[in-house]
């Protein structure tokens, strides 16, 4: 049973409608969005290639008053923050997460800036003190993204820079992305890389290797592939040698793939070291030092012990950080995750690893609310 405070590192907050962003756009871009598209506004985020037949949200997460799932703070409190004793929650946007899928790089930069201001206004300054923000980064123009990290990241409750979509068509280790890491390090913000960002019709890259899937099941099963690509790329290109204090959080990619990738990576490195002589350690060592990973969606093994055995191999108690992915259809609630992980990992996975990653040394344990529904066994 885990009855302590929970830190949730992936909560998708959303606007009731994209119109909420209009006041945050510059006058020219507002005109562009509202008029130049004819009768309908230009959509902020392009549509996904693969429709989920059940929709991508929990059915009970839509506010009674209307609007998108994740757009009501009241409902978020009722369904997530209060019952699960969320001490701190990291906001990661709804469809906005994928701002780097916008084909127009200039509009993408403006949309990201507007979304960050909206997030600060509505959810941080006027929202709930438990909530922390991520700086949405339109990485099509990395220098602009870096500027935005320095600007919006200066807010005291902005806790990370969020990369979710490959807007350039090169994996995130490519030096083109270095300005983003430089800014994140300068602002002392971890870089959060969220999975599934390439599943948009506007993208020039396939969301998975070897071709674009046709069905949602096909796509979603393979979502971790994109995150693997970015992780391997960042290590190979020496991003962590260049930015030794950079911290990275991988989000929504699951966890069971980690041993397979790290084992192969270390093995191949022995035969290919001469291609990457700037690496001074085995690839897996960079992972353990610089990277943390969110739990959701925790893979469902045929037997609970099998997943635990696998996770022990990658020192899961020190690399995993809990995330719910509220309000999405594949959400993991804290109770469920607690049941599937060993009790001795709970304090670290639900709280301490996140405190360390974000440098939240100021947080002290709070007495757990005595709510039966909140008990995580």
């Amino acid at each position, binding site marked *: 049973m885990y009855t302590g405070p929970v830190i949730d590192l992936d909560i998708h907050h959303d606007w009731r409608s994209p119109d909420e962003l209009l006041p945050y756009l510059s006058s020219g871009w507002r005109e562009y969005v509202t008029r130049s598209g004819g009768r309908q506004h230009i959509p902020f985020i392009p549509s996904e290639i693969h429709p989920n037949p059940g929709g991508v949200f929990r059915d009970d997460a839509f506010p009674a008053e209307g609007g998108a799932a994740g757009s009501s703070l009241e409902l978020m409190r009722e369904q997530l923050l209060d019952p699960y004793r969320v001490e701190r929650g990291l906001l990661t946007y709804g469809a906005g997460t994928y701002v780097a899928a916008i084909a127009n790089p200039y509009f993408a930069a403006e949309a990201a800036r507007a979304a960050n201001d909206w997030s600060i206004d509505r959810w941080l300054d006027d929202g709930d003190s438990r909530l922390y923000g991520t700086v949405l980064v339109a990485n099509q123009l990395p220098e602009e993204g870096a500027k935005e990290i320095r600007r919006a990241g200066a807010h005291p409750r902005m806790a990370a820079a969020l990369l979710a979509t490959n807007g350039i068509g090169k994996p995130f280790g490519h030096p083109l992305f270095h300005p983003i890491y430089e800014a994140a390090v300068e602002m002392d913000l971890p870089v959060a890389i969220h999975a599934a960002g390439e599943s948009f019709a506007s993208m020039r890259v396939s969301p998975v290797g070897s071709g674009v899937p046709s069905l949602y099941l096909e796509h979603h099963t393979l979502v971790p592939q994109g995150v693997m690509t970015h992780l391997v790329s960042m290590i190979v290109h*020496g991003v962590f040698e260049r930015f030794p204090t950079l911290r990275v959080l991988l989000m929504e990619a699951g966890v069971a793939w980690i041993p397979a990738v790290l084992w192969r990576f270390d093995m191949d490195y*022995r*035969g290919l*070291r*001469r291609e990457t002589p*700037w690496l001074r350690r*085995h690839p897996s060592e960079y992972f353990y030092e610089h990277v943390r990973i969110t739990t959701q969606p925790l893979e469902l093994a045929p037997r609970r012990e099998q997943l635990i055995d696998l996770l022990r191999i990658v020192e899961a108690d020190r690399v995993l950080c809990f995330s719910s992915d509220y309000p999405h259809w594949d959400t993991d609630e804290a109770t469920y995750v607690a049941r599937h992980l060993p009790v001795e990992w709970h304090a670290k996975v639900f709280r301490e690893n996140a405190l360390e990653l974000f440098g939240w040394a100021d947080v002290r344990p709070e007495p757990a609310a005595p709510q039966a529904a909140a008990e995580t066994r």
Partner: protein
Amino acid sequence: MIEVGSLDDFPPRTVTVVPAAGVEVGIVRWDGDDVYALRNVCPHALGPVCAGRLGPKIVAPRGDPMGLDVDESCPVIACAWHGWEFDVRTGQAVWPDGRMRVKTYPARVVRGRVVVALDRTDVDPGPAVEP
């Protein structure tokens, strides 16, 4: 000590596999009189390590991908099978903290002849295992 040939039989910066006391030994001649001897068995999967490529160790003096260099003092053999690299002077793996090693033998040039010190224990060292 076993004599394996004249120094002139081994051109500079080459590796030559010779039979010696029942084992295959790779003779590496580096620069001048620098000669080294390694058992031709890779600790990874027992492949013919000395049938691989020899060269100076590639290094990144700036610690980043720009401006690669070589360390001329460090001859490296990349195994013929999977390319794992070993420092010819010590047999030690070249990757960071590599503890795996190829068996090496003392070798030197005596009056223009290359001699290698082998003994009975050298016959079957078996594969090394590195976790």
